[in-house]
């Protein structure tokens, strides 16, 4: 016992307070979602699952589930694909400085507030002044980037631009973890760059795929700033978080809490098995 329990709590106390608050938040969400509390009915009547009934009967909410789910799937697919492509390309360069520089370059969109990105892209998608001008100049089709369902596809594309570099970073980290002697023995056996990637590096990088998928899912579930900035409360791009915020803003607290709980449950199902297994493995270096 290197550290007395007393000293331990002294050092870790503030963090524990915060963590307990967050866990309390989860619990309070569940409780709230089972009451009838809202601005129009400020009473904590316990109504069990009636709120959830209301929630899932709301067409708008079902819509947001579809939208968020679509967003998640497409971000995972395209984010991983483009991230892997960029990572493989960067990896071809042996020089660590060049790799670092290239990686930082593709990660830059994450350094910009999503709101600012939203401002830029809203204009890039503008029918009059944006992409369309240049597309018609070269004789390609013009698109209505932000109308109807196009808006969703366009925004998903933007999110790939935002997160693609980060996912590439995850893959690169996985590549760097491939033991040097495995690469060397493949090279000694005469493997060229292509075979090396396909037969050696990429299979060893399942960790990168796992991380890339988990993060993409989390990013999709948390999607708020981007659609809110570009299209505000447009129903075609309303994610679950936006729905929840909407209800919260109108003080329909119980439904908001129910949506939150649902969101937490979904994230938990995705993340927790990988997270607890992964965290223990990485952090504790259990071989």
């Amino acid at each position, binding site marked *: 016992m*290197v550290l007395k329990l007393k000293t331990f709590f002294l*050092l870790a106390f503030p963090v524990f307070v915060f963590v307990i608050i967050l866990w309390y938040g989860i619990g309070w969400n569940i409780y709230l979602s089972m009451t009838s509390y809202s601005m129009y009915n400020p009473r904590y009547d316990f109504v069990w699952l009636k709120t959830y009934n209301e929630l899932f009967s709301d067409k708008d909410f079902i819509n947001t589930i579809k939208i968020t789910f679509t967003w998640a799937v497409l971000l995972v697919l395209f984010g991983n694909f483009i991230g892997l492509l960029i990572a*493989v*390309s960067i990896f071809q360069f042996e020089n660590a400085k060049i790799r670092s520089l290239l990686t930082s370059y593709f990660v830059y969109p994450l350094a910009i507030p999503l709101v600012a990105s939203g401002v830029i892209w809203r204009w890039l998608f503008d029918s009059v*002044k944006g992409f369309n001008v240049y597309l018609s100049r070269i004789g390609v089709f013009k698109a209505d980037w932000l109308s109807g369902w196009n808006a969703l596809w366009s925004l998903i594309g933007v999110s790939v631009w935002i997160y693609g570099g980060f996912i590439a*970073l995850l893959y690169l980290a996985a590549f760097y973890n491939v033991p040097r002697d495995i690469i060397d023995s493949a090279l000694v056996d005469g493997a060229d760059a292509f075979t090396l990637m396909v037969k050696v590096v990429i299979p060893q990088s399942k960790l990168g795929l796992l991380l890339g998928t988990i993060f993409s899912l989390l990013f999709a579930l948390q999607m708020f700033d981007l659609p809110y900035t570009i299209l505000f409360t447009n129903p075609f791009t309303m994610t679950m978080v936006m729905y929840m915020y909407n209800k919260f803003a109108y003080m329909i607290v119980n439904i908001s809490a129910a949506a939150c709980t649902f*969101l937490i449950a979904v994230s938990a199902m995705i993340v927790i098995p990988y997270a607890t297994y992964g965290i223990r493995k990485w952090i504790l270096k259990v071989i």
Partner: protein
Amino acid sequence: MKLNILIASIVLILFGLFWAIPLYALIIGSVKSLADAIESPLLDLPKELDMGAIVRAFNLLINAIINTAAVTIPASFVAVLLGSLAAFAIYLRSGPIADYVPPLIAITTYIPYQALIVPLISLIRQIETIFKLPLYDTLHGLFMVFLIYFTPMATLLMFIFMNNLPREIIEAALTDGMKPLVVYRRVALPLLSPGFVATLIFILIQMWNNFFIPLSMTRGYEKHVTLKTFGYVGEMGTIYNEMFAAAAISSLPPLLIFLFLGKYFVRGLLTFTGGGR
């Protein structure tokens, strides 16, 4: 040139050009004159450099920028400091605590943080009534909520960096007779400084760029720079130069930090994911 490098370069140039388009649009858009902005399409070069939009946007944003800096810089520092202390305590304690506490902390960082805003706001309200301390729509209230949300993440990151330290050096400090806090100050912290800085940069950028938390915790747009930028979107209609200037100004601090200190962040992140095999 080897074939793989050639293909890789082509791929990277293609993606790279596409990646740059928004940044390019942002820069040239901010320096267009009003007339230019009304007439010309987005990606055309400015006919002349007009700093007017930037000046106007800056004047409107300066308040929010100061507020944001006043909150995020101390908050990120406190978060990482507290986080590193807690991570150190967990690391030293080892045993079952080190096995079970980190996953509990990790879970709070994985769930969408927005999902906890409802109970958090009601908690803030309760504290307000109990302590007669105004928190909602205040800078210190925002500071508190940022701490609550981001300290666990900081703890987790610092814990990962801590596990990459050679354990025996910490143990040597203990057998030298140093009390745990002294070990932290004299040995652990100096050795952790790259990780500390990386985490600090990461958290600072996250706080600066955050939109949802200030949106939920304050009224109006003055208390955080992302809110003010958002405010522009509705107001300015078809004139994009000032809007872009505002976006550029609000993006400048995190982008600059990322440009100059980003290598620590990337390096740190690589230890993070490469930390265990």
